């Protein structure tokens, strides 16, 4: 049988590659200087969904909740083989913690036909790994986290291998299911040249609006509106209009979104400044090293 897969993806700052330019004078990180990337383990989730589609048929839909700039990871997903992409963007999503985020995503996923929901195990900006399990609970479906391998799909049952920290286990369950996928699960494919040609002009409505406004600085409101409509209908006719939903489209209850839907609040943020401790410089000579070892033994650091 064919399976409909919904993959949740996120655009994240590349926290793993903090270079000199991204550091402020005081040793803290300049976040705006970091490149935005496709969250690495979300690529593993997308790859797993694409493999399921290739083997059994069905459809792969990707969703991202984020700022308009996140349209980039949706296009990237289309380049890699996704069938459909949805940008979930709304100013009222701002300040959502994992609980509010999982509620908003639930409202969106509910609108779709799905057998398998896939997410990366965690995103590298927050490293919480919470949204997947929270979304599964809100959808009322089974979750299987830390997936290392899809062993078998057979009718309505799925068997996977998951990491349990000090080993692994193989578990079986009945669909629908939500899987969180680790970086060990597969090697994500790169964008296909043909698909890049096909989708390079795909745009979300919010991108179209920005581009048209930038290209026509002197146009009136009315002219802009009609230009935007024309462009949208042109792209739509060619299958290049990426869907965009707000909180109204997904019928979200605003009390559970954004700040009001988020029980956790930030009390304080401190930048990590590399602490200069009392340190000694040791000459890399036999004497320097021998004296250091002597001192470590005297201080009972070495037995």
């Amino acid at each position, binding site marked *: 049988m064919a399976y409909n897969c919904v993959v949740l993806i996120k655009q994240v700052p590349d926290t793993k590659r903090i270079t000199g330019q991204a550091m402020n004078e005081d040793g803290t990180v300049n976040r705006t200087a970091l490149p935005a990337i496709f969250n690495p383990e979300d690529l593993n989730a997308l790859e797993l969904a694409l493999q399921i589609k290739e083997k059994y048929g069905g459809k792969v839909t990707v969703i991202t909740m984020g700022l308009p700039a996140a349209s980039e990871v949706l296009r990237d997903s289309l380049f890699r083989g996704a069938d459909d992409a949805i940008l979930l963007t709304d100013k009222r999503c701002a300040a959502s913690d994992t*609980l509010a985020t999982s509620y908003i995503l639930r409202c969106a996923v509910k609108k779709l036909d799905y057998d398998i929901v896939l997410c990366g195990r965690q995103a590298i900006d927050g490293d919480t790994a919470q949204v997947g399990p929270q979304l599964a609970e809100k959808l009322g479906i089974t979750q299987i986290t830390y997936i290392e391998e899809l062993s078998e799909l057979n009718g309505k049952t799925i068997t996977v291998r998951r990491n349990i920290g000090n080993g692994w286990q193989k578990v079986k369950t009945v669909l629908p299911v939500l899987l969180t996928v680790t970086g060990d699960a597969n090697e994500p494919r790169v964008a296909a040249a043909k698909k890049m040609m096909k989708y390079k002009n795909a745009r979300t409505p919010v991108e179209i609006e920005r581009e048209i406004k930038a290209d026509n600085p002197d146009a009136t409101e009315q002219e802009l509106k009609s230009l935007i409509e024309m462009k949208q209908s042109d792209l739509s006719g060619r299958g290049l209009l990426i869907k965009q939903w707000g909180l109204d489209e997904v019928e979200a209850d605003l009390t559970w979104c954004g700040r009001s839907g988020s029980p956790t609040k930030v009390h304080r943020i401190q930048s990590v400044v590399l602490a200069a401790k009392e340190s000694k410089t040791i000459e890399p000579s036999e004497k320097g090293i021998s004296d250091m070892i002597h001192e470590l033994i005297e201080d009972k650091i070495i037995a």
Partner: protein
Amino acid sequence: MIDVNRNGEVWVFAEQHNGDLQDVPVELMSKARRMADTLGVKLAATLLGNGVKELVTKLIQHGADKVYLVEHRSLGQYQTNGYAKVMYDLIHKYQPQIVLYGATTTGRDLAPRIASAIKAGLTADCTDLQIGDHTTVADKKLHKNLLFQIRPAFGGNIIATIINHDRWPQMATVREGVMPMPEPDVKRKGEIVEEKVKISKQDLPLKILEEHKRPKKVNLKAARVIVAGGAGVGSKENFKLVWDLANCLGAAPAASRAAVDLGFIDKDHQVGQTGTTVRPSLYIAVGISGAIQHQAGMSQSQKIVAINSDPNAPIFQVAHYNIVGDLNDVVPKMIKAIKEKTV
């Protein structure tokens, strides 16, 4: 969610697998004990499983006043929904103010499911916990004695303190190895509260077909001395230097993520944000540049020796002994000096 309940207890989820109590709930006990004392409430552990009653003593000896014991045939092996349901029911019944879990694969699978069901806040992977006050910005209201959930964020580049002042319980998962293991007090007495639960078929959607334990190749958490190599070591062959230095010190060999990714050594040896957090007496960093993610896992070491050819390597900012030089020259000299001094 439950209401703010100032008399609520402090709870620790006592994760066990096949009757083995995990380290992290025990590590959590000393901090949780102090927080419960500050709040003037009891510290309780929740112990779920099948035939696990003998673990109660250990929990009490490490600081619990009370253990909620839930035994059931279906709780013998962990699975998300069954465990989440039991915890959900217990939280509703007893209204604890704080619930803590280890940030293990199990804790990180279970806690968010419970948090979602109960519509409460949850902070992942905390490295410290404190009790403190918070004033909400909008109404200037002072909330006393909240749980400060302290964790690195943004790849370890910032430390965030998270609070949860209105929708309780306050819940957090806490990283393994960040809190020292308390000594047991064999004279401590505590109370056992045995709870009966009903678990239906729908609470057990998973069939566990096979399970393979893979014992860790090294126990970094228990090591008094650690010698860790980084990308600067250059090759798997040259990593022998790290092993040799570790051997002559009776130390555990370890590595940075970069060295693991390059295939110099197995992932079990990785120290850092995505590896093990260690706090040995002595940490020798060989050819490790000292990215913030690595420092997150070793900066609590009592003494740090860093060997690197780059004088600007960030590792020198946390090290106590800085050796700028070629590790291929320095490490053999160290081995020689140690052999001479320790004979």
